[in-house]
């Protein structure tokens, strides 16, 4: 009986020491943990305008020619951002057959990319280039409208809904 109990005590002691050793090595257990984080950035294009409505009034004539004097407006600004490649900004009017001439072009482009396209005439409702060469950048420009009329055009009022779009180049 005494020998058996001594054997049990010895075995328990050995197990205790082994447990302590394994417990010490457990320090490294789960001392770090990891997580996979995926950040996706899709192509994003945004454009905005500072002036939602403007009026151009032709109410003067040249004393020399008698022809109506053009009316211009540069009060509005266009701002945009795109992280896509080879984009351009187009402009289009909803007025398919205007009586009076309205021209538009971009002025004073600032930002990291973009080149003003030549002045376009909004004489129909087709899409025309406004700013080209826009890639992964943000930008800003003035919008210059010029309205003109001939005596033969008479008098009247026309409305254009002008839309600016960032689109693939």
């Amino acid at each position, binding site marked *: 009986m005494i020998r058996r109990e001594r054997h049990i005590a010895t075995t328990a002691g050995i197990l*205790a020491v082994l*447990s*302590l050793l394994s*417990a*010490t090595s*457990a*320090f490294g*257990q*789960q*001392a*770090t*943990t*990891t*997580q*996979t*984080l*995926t*950040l*996706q*950035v*899709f*192509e*994003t*294009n*945004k*454009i*905005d305008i500072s002036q939602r409505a403007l009026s151009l009034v032709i109410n003067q004539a040249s004393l020399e020619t008698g022809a109506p004097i053009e009316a211009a407006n540069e009060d509005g600004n266009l*701002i*945009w*951002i*795109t*992280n*896509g*490649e080879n984009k351009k900004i187009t402009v289009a009017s909803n007025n398919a057959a205007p009586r009076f001439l309205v021209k538009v072009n971009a002025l004073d482009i600032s930002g*990291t990319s973009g080149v003003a396209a030549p002045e376009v005439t909004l004489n129909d409702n087709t899409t025309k280039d406004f700013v080209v060469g826009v890639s*992964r*950048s*943000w*930008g*800003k420009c003035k919008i210059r409208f010029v309205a003109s009329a001939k005596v033969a055009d008479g008098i009247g009022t026309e409305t254009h809904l002008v839309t600016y779009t960032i689109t693939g180049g």
Partner: protein
Amino acid sequence: MARAPIRFRKPTDLNKALVFPALLLIFACVPQGASAQVYGTDSHNVTVTVATVNIVQVSAGTASLTLSAAAVTAGVNLMGPVTNSATSLLWGFNSSLRKVTVKTNLAAPKFILKVLAVAPTQGTASPEVTLSTTAADFLINTGRSSGSCTIQYSGSALASAGTGTDTHTITFTVAAQ
């Protein structure tokens, strides 16, 4: 007339004198039922050891951020941020003076990723950090505690960075403070 020897003198008194001590002795040997009577006692030592255990765990193995038009403002070069607070960090430290650091494995990410501990139940959240391959403090003063906090990721991107996907392996590590 000589008195008889004591043992034969007045035998009745002698009996009385000896019976009482004998009965008392027998009575004393019978358990009285007294509350203090102890029949036996034994004792041994029981040793309790507690290993050093410092563990951290995330509530989910993955998280994601998507930057789309909703987080973009025309004319502003920095797109975002978008945030994700869907996962938590849990910990248990039985050592004193412990903190948690965080880093990413992505050496040259395309976009900007930040992380912040939100509402820790123990300890102090470090300021929001932009993740890099160098471990930065995420949570401090967490020795000898068990707790949790929300992991808030913030993702943003410059327009000039274009489009794409960054996949990070984020590592949270227990360290001595």
